[in-house]
């Protein structure tokens, strides 16, 4: 998914203006010209300058470069689904790992993603079980990382 440089440039300019505006809420240091807002403002100015150049370059190249060019993968429904499932897996882990727990979620994510990528169901489940318990034992038991138990808490080992 390639965007025309002008589109990216505009996004950068808007971001930079918002960023600079936000720095105005920072406190000033007494008796000093330079405060916590200095570097963010410089970065914002830098982004605006780069953004303007990108917009100019993008407009110059608009004949050959459309506003958004879908690469071969973005037109391929199967690959878009792959990407969506991958991102969704991590989001689901972020949102529900405390409630559901590491082991059930890891089993689910591994099995779904492996089957989706074309592994046979048998092998997917087998690898998911082996990998989940290996990672859980290594991190939770040997390295003492408090991976959430979630629904398995009553039978935690």
């Amino acid at each position, binding site marked *: 998914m390639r965007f025309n440089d002008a589109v990216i440039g505009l996004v950068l300019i808007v971001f930079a203006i918002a960023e600079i505006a936000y720095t105005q809420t920072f406190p000033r240091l007494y008796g000093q010209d330079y405060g916590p807002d200095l570097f*963010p403002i410089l970065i914002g100015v830098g982004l605006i300058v780069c953004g303007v150049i990108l917009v100019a370059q993008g407009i110059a190249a608009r004949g050959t470069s459309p506003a958004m060019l879908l690469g071969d993968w973005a037109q391929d429904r199967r690959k878009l689904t792959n990407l969506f499932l991958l*991102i969704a897996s991590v989001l689901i*882990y972020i949102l529900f790992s405390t409630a559901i727990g590491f082991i059930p979620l890891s089993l689910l994510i591994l099995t779904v993603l492996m089957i989706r990528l074309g592994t046979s169901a048998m092998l997917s489940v087998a690898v998911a079980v082996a990998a989940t318990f290996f*990672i859980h034992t290594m*991190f939770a038991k040997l390295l003492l990382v*408090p991976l959430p138990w979630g629904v398995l808490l009553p039978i935690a080992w």
Partner: protein
Amino acid sequence: MGVIYEAFLLITEPYTLGVMLLAAIFGLFVGSMPGLTATMAAALLIPFTFFMDPVPAIAIVVTAVAMAIFAGDIPGALLRIPGTPASAAYCDESYAMTRKGLAQRALGISLVTSVIGGLTGSVVLSLSAPALAEFAIQFSSFEYFWLACLGLSCAVIISTGSTIKGVVSLMIGLFVATIGIDITAGHPRFTFGSVELMGGISFIPAMIGMFAISEILRYFIAKPVDTSHIEQQPGGSVFRGLWPILKKYKLNIVRGSSIGAIIGILPGAGADIAAWISFAISKKFSKEPEKFGTGHPEGLVDAGSANNASLAGAWVPATVFGIPGDSITAIVIGVLYMKGMNPGPMVFLNNPELIYAVFMSFFIANLALLPLGFGAIKLSRQILKIPQQVLMPVILIFCIVGSFAINNTVFGVTVMLVFGLLAFVMEENGFPVAPAILGIVLGGMLEDNFMSSMIKADGDILGFFSRPISATLGIVTLAIWILPLVAAYLRRRRRLAAD
């Protein structure tokens, strides 16, 4: 001598050598899997370093990376798919050798030149870093400010693709570094009330995101890697007939190793750029440039030694100034801080035994590469048969657990996902990622040193030129910024005049 002996005892502890061996096997595996990079190997090892003493923690990264850069040559020669970007420069050449039935020889050359290059880089590191540290001990915030500027400029100049996109990438990195409580006024910036963001973006999850998650994302949308055309294990021995080639191209080995070490030292450029440049130089100065591309060993010798030499070179600025020489040392600096070995000249004074033990790990890793790499060549067909569609989801879970483990909060996983997506979108649109990483690592150093210098100089900007070394560094930095603009302006005027 006492310090050296102490360092030797530290690095030869059975536990340290044991974990180094495991890391070596891991590195060989990751390097030889196409799509898994050496930087990813380093990022995946970080969660384990939390639970280790400083020396084994750093030594496992050193070992895994040295192995991975060599192992990247294996699928390059056998499948024409580079295992890591550092092998991309010459995988056509080594595959051409394979087509001639010389796969074992191509891999033999890669292995031996990797070992020699790696050892040369280690010598450069162990000699130059302590000398530089002695010099750097006199540096104040003024000098560090300019050094950070130089490092960041270098990363933009060397980065691939358009310079303006390199600058944008750098700005994004610097912006990320401003998130959290600012040091001068103690005011939270861009945290929007989030307590998790107060301490700043956690560095390790961000790195795991940028180097591992972005690769996984790319795998999920890529065409499946076809390993069916792997050549039959050809006969012949890995080392037979190697000596005459190495003797013939001994100067290439020296040249490749030196170029590699120097490019490694330059901030932001690592093994992949070292291999490209030394391969190009090899072709340019070769007596038989017409043979390049037909399975000619000369370029392999140069580039094979250069990429391994650059690994150690990158540690020179990383240990002495805290400025990463490549993306791997950007991760390592995070580990050094975590282990209380804060990079800078003081670590050479306060913990010399630790830093020398780390340097020794380079020698041990590169020597161990010879037998272990030989084993990897012998097992290469079996390794390359491991299905990636099984591997990638497992790596994803591994990344999630690793990002969680740094602070034991799920917020680390969020940071990992955001930065993975950011790196993915950036690379899709031709923005180099290396300047952003340098921006994240050096942003704090840049701002802290600027602020304390300003307080010292009482707000007088000329203070940055008041000390001899600082003035020199400042002038060099300004020249690097201004000269390309002047050159571009002159070129444009000449072109307009000619029209």
